[in-house]
């Protein structure tokens, strides 16, 4: 069953064509990697999916678990189970990590018709998940992303993903700014969340992340469309020959 379906998506940003008829189908239980050079439209794709203002489709359709996203605002999409791990997580001065997490989780639970967690139950759950991600209590007390290191920011993103239990997660350049140790922790966190009921789309420049989060499918994005799809071996080909060879061949 297809959890995420993108059909012939076209989109302009500042009057420039960025997505030029992109199609992609992601089934539950699958991990897809989207690779592409700078400027190929990777971040635009993630903003379009998440419903950021200014990234509305010009034509084409997107479905999340069979439901069209075109009339849904960013927050509705999130509550419906779409998660975006940001390339550059945003600082929220004065907003405590724990209370931010709680608001987010309760919004999702409310949407699902589940009871909102009270403070104690929530803190217990959050601590449990956080410890797996090597996120210390002290970090949850700090303001969201303020003064976090690159690794801490990404760990906090994945912690949120784990708490929100989304249907579809999009990881936008999650490997950027991570050293090898941090990359491993973050990848372990992601892998732990792979189930038969959800799907993950990993957007990345480099093959190295895919050594840790092994995808079922790899797609090459170039100039706003997917020019080639294949298995994990496609990523190795990129690593070996660069994007240029693939793009020229296409």
């Amino acid at each position, binding site marked *: 069953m297809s959890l995420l379906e993108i059909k012939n998506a076209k989109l302009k940003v500042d009057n420039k064509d960025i997505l030029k008829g992109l199609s992609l189908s992601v089934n539950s239980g699958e991990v897809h990697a989207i690779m592409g050079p700078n400027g190929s439209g990777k971040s635009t794709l993630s903003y379009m999916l998440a*419903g950021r203002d200014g990234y509305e489709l010009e034509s084409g359709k997107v479905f999340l678990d069979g439901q069209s996203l075109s009339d849904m605002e960013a*927050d509705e999409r*999130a509550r419906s189970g779409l998660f975006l791990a*940001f390339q550059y997580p945003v600082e*929220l*001065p004065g907003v*405590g990590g724990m209370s931010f997490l709680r608001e987010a989780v309760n919004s999702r639970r409310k949407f699902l018709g589940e009871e909102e967690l009270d403070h104690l139950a929530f803190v217990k759950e959050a601590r449990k998940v956080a410890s797996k991600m090597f996120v210390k209590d002290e970090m949850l007390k700090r303001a969201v992303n303020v003064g976090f290191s690159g690794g801490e920011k990404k760990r906090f993103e994945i912690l949120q993903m784990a708490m929100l239990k989304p249907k579809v997660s999009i990881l936008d350049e999650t490997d950027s700014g991570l050293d090898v140790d941090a990359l491993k922790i973050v990848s372990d966190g992601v892998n732990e969340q792979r189930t038969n009921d959800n799907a993950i789309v990993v957007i990345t420049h480099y093959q190295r992340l895919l050594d840790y989060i092994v995808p079922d499918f790899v797609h090459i994005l170039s100039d706003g469309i997917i020019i080639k799809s294949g298995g994990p071996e496609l990523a190795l080909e990129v690593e070996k020959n660069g994007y240029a060879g693939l793009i020229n061949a296409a």
Partner: protein
Amino acid sequence: MVATQETIDKVKEVSSTYKYGFVTDLEADKAPLGLSEDIVKFISHKKKEPKWLLEWRLKAYKKWLSMEAPDWAMVDFPKINFQDIYYYSAPKTKPKLNSLDEVDPELLRTYEKLGIPIKEQKVLAGVAVDYVFDSVSVATTFRKKLAKEGIIFCPISEAVQSHPDLVKKYIGSVIPISDNYYAALNSAVFTDGSFVYIPKGVKCPMELSTYFRINEQNSGQFERTLIIAEDNTYVSYLEGCTAPQRDENQLHAAVVELVAMNNAEIKYSTVQNWYPGDKDGKGGIYNFVTKRGNCLGQKSKISWTQVETGSAITWKYPSCVLKGDDSVGEFYSVAVANNAQQADTGTKMIHIGKNTKSTIISKGISAGKAQNTYRGQVQIQKNARGSRNFTQCDSLLIGDKCGAHTVPYINQFTPYARVEHEATTSKISEDQLFYCLQRGLDTEQATSLIVNGFCKEVMKELPMEFAVEAQKLIGISLEGSVG
């Protein structure tokens, strides 16, 4: 003053069923429109005040006549016609409703969002409650407990009768009648307010709150409060209510005086949520308040915390006069102005004694087409060696039609002191909003979260139960300002 006419009509209507000249009595309980020496005498007479207080009022009235309304604040409003105001009317009983179903649904929604318990909602909205309301019995118990400690906490009109010496000694001692236009007016016509006296060595065992007087008479538009803390004492006083307050009186000119002796600490917290007027600024309260505390004793401390979200116009500068050596003054403020609201608020820290310290943290939030001004004075006098001040003024803008202004005045008359001033202006960024939305928060939740994060340093100064309500209140005040 349409509503007043309504009251009279209603009373007339009801009074036809009463035989004993109810109307006449009630009519006599209302002073005629306008202000004159006779009105001042009328008020004093109605309150059965001693002669010295009447004379004090009259002196204030004469002073007021010779003064001009201040025009230096960054607020703009039509000239007030002081002869078009009633300065005394009998305590108003709110119209009794039979159930919450009769209450304005908009008001109920706000109560709900604030998380005010049903029982309390009923009292606030004026619904007849036929069982003994909890807070009344609680208040009685508390009052007994306070009396046991020797603490006096009562309406100031009561204190004038029961403790005239204390009132006489301290009223106007912090804010003299000639201090400013609105303080002079208040001194002439004040109707009621709170009086607190903490005897030597007593730490007040609970937060004193106007909430406990919720069922008592409305203090009216010219409120006057006096708090005296003797040597080695502590008291925390909460003023106001997060629930929206409507009032038919447009002008409110209150005076609050605090006196702290050696080693005494007074913490005064306010949440102000008067009617701000509609989107275009029609209606709404003019809130012209004078608040000041005297740190008379050594090592005394006065701390003001305010969350100002209501009123069409706010003109308010809670201040500290640091006379005692090593005394401390603090001012923590959140001022929210949305739509057509105008706020000009800040503080004065006057350092007179040696090694005095003051801290000012001001957070101004502007949205809609509101104007929000921080105005603060730090004065270090010649003998205030070793004194320090730290000021931080942060402004947050929501939208592109509002304004934030910071006007600091620093006068330093000794080189042996340190004054620091920091100021920032920021906007809620699109990135921040999108990040929150992507986590499933709606625009209003997101705004509220970001704004409350911005005010955190001030909110943590509020007593716990107040802080939770105040946070929600800030969110509600900014509804519809983003997106």
